[in-house]
């Protein structure tokens, strides 16, 4: 039986954290909490996520300001609470 497998790169946005001036592009743009994932797929169904980078992404240029795991988790929880209100 042929096992169809592959991988794809995904940018998973998890909510806006506000606006700011990006140091990379200089634009005043929305900043989004974002993870850059390498997804392994089996029969086109994603089965494993390998995180390449996580942080705050500028919506103008796509530059991701890196965050550590704990910081990211806290920021994500704040964003989720903000959405649920």
């Amino acid at each position, binding site marked *: 039986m042929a096992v169809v497998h592959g991988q794809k*790169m995904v940018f998973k946005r998890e909510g806006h954290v506000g606006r700011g001036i990006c140091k*990379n592009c200089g634009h005043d743009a929305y900043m989004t909490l974002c993870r850059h994932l390498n997804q392994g797929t089996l029969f086109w169904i994603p089965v494993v996520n390998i995180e390449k980078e996580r942080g705050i992404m500028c919506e103008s*240029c796509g530059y991701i300001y890196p965050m550590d795991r704990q910081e990211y988790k806290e920021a994500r929880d704040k964003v989720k609470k903000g959405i649920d209100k």
Partner: protein
Amino acid sequence: MAFFALLGIGDSEGDVYLLAAGIFAFVAILMFGTAGTKKKRIKAQLREMEEEGSLQILYNDFSYTGAKFSKKYQVAYGRRYLLDFAAAKEGFRIMDLQEIHNVFRCNMVDGEPQETIYIALETADGSRTLVGSAAKMTEEFSGMIANLKQITRLNGGAQWQ
């Protein structure tokens, strides 16, 4: 020899400049090692420019020592002009760096982040052109961005970073 005849070498006093322009054209084609249809388009475009006289302007710009040619990223730039050889249909694209207000690395295309990283060249009205695609940031790529930022700063462009 046929190529020189095409350029009209031997007809007038400006032959040295025509010869130099021809050499530049030949080197550009060799540098970028393109094949088939795209090479024909580049040659045709160079021929047209040479007939108009605009190739000499490019040659003057690229004749200084700081000019950069990148085969890997299909980009060449001098003090004033940038040539993007990745523009498939047109042969190559010429951009006037004096019109560029901002240069930065960018992986956002049509509002979606991409794996590929580009050099974004923005004019003062915010119109953005992406050149020189890369799979990841390398020293050469960062160096090109830094050089282009320096050129735009000298032209009165953006001052950050």
